[in-house]
């Protein structure tokens, strides 16, 4: 059981609060969708929650221990983080790319121990990338790369998976596939936190939504109760129509708020 607690977290840049007094608690088994307009502070909040960026005020604790007191390798073993559109810088094989996810578990020198090769194979299997194991990672398509990166994040069996816009740039089939995998991870007992702009997918798959607006957390709770037309109108400044939030048939549709008939 893992639990992340943020208390009054604030991040300031150039005199402006990018994240402003965010307090929230999340725990294993939840799939938290972080939503909000561009520039609302989602990525910054995610970096703070992942322990990559230190908050200017407030604190984040993992199972009651402040992140600032955890060793970076110890933290890396329990939480995986995927930044926005991750890419491979060298044409290494998919297998080796995935094996990099085991970096925190490895000794300073030497190759990959045998039992770890089994975890790499298992991670590849989990995202259906076994056939591509030998292919250079730079030649993968967007959907394949997203799956390879997810395998990279999962190979060390972390308790917490954080992904910054994991569905960005994916076609509908791959986006559905991706969000479904994240949901299954949460069902399997992990804490999954993902920022996303695909509100229909958020309404269908997430168990909780955290809504950010101008650095503040304006709503946080179970998807069915929290994701409402009124909230979306307030945050995104569009007329939204939300039906069946929190169910597999949920729909979110938008109309510009000051639109004239076409």
């Amino acid at each position, binding site marked *: 059981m893992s639990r992340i607690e943020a208390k009054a977290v604030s991040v300031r840049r150039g005199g402006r609060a990018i994240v402003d007094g965010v307090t929230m608690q999340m725990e294993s088994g939840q799939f938290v969708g972080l939503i909000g307009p561009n520039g609302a502070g989602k990525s910054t909040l995610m970096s703070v929650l*992942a322990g*990559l960026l230190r908050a200017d005020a407030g604190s984040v604790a993992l199972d009651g221990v402040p992140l600032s007191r955890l*060793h*970076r*390798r110890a*933290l*890396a*073993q329990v*939480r*995986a*983080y*995927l*930044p926005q559109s*991750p*890419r*491979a*810088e*060298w*044409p*290494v*094989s998919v297998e*080796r*790319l995935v094996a*990099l*996810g085991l*970096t*925190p578990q*490895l000794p*300073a*020198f030497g190759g990959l121990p045998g039992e770890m090769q089994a975890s790499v194979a298992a991670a590849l299997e989990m995202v259906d990338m076994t056939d591509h194991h030998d292919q*250079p990672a730079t030649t993968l398509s967007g959907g394949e790369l997203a799956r390879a990166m997810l395998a*990279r994040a999962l190979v060390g069996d972390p308790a917490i998976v954080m992904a910054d816009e994991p569905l960005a740039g994916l076609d509908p089939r791959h986006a559905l596939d991706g969000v479904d995998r994240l949901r299954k991870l949460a069902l399997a007992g992990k804490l999954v936190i993902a920022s996303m702009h695909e509100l229909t997918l958020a309404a269908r798959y997430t168990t909780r939504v955290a809504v950010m607006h101008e650095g503040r957390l304006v709503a946080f709770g179970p998807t069915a109760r929290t994701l409402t037309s009124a909230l979306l109108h307030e945050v995104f400044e569009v007329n939204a129509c939300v039906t069946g939030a929190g169910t597999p048939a949920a729909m979110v549709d938008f109309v510009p708020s000051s639109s004239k008939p076409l």
Partner: protein
Amino acid sequence: MVGKVALRALVSALLLACILLSLGTGRVWLDPAVLFGAIFEPKPSLPWLILSELRIPRTILGLLVGASLGLSGAVLQGLLRNPLAEPGLLGVSAGAALGAVIAIYFGLSATFALATPVLGIAGAMMAAALTLSIGRGGTLTMILAGAAVSGLMGAGLSLALNFAPNPSAAYEITIWLLGSLENRDWGQVLLVAPFILIGWLCLALTVRDIDALTLGEAQAESLGVNIARTRWLALAGTALAVGAATAVTGSVGFIGLIAPHLVRPFVGHQPSRVLLPSALFGAILLLFADVATRVIPTAGQEVRLGVLTSIVGAPFFFWLVLKLRRMSP
């Protein structure tokens, strides 16, 4: 795909051939029989003297310098994830050159033979400290700081040439800058070896981190890599190894750039696996170039090492640019 064993055998054979050539070639040709005779019966004969006082220190220095260039080139390309990165990028080589030139300029090298390498190492350290203190905080700022430090050190070199006390001093400085392994003795080898070995250690410690950097800085940090520490180790290692190397040989370009590219496709592009082969290839290339300077027939001066590596290295650079142009959209 070439087998791993075959590849290792090939590299070892090449290295051994280069070492033997380097020991045998020169104004006096020592054929292998004489070479082995001199090694196994160390009695003060002429071949033995040539070997122990000239050829062996020169060959060892060539190995150390070439391996330093190849290794630091591989680490820097991995750290900066830039195929054009090379040891000179961080201002270290220019700093070493400036230190050595100051020793020549003030005539210190004439009174105390080791003054040139000692001041060269000091110059490399100062340049590295400057790059590190200005370029703290990011990879891009570190590259920019390195460029600025290189420029500053280059200005110092020009100043020394500008105010050279007499034409022969200016000539001596210019010739030294072109790089050479000629007439290097055991004193210089023993002076720089500790710096180079500590430098190698620093560079080797980055091995896991540069692998993780294949995923970019954000993911590497999320995997527990302390990027500031990695940057520090890479720069300090380069300053120690390449700084000390440049301090005794003068500027030898392109080897640090070329060696990693030659081996990368054979090791599956994984940054950590490039390090050792790149160091070995750096040594092979440098020894081979040094042998070439001895056998290329010239009227007076022998071709300087740095000139030769530039003549061979520049076309390679063109090829690299063309390859990158094909790959980018």
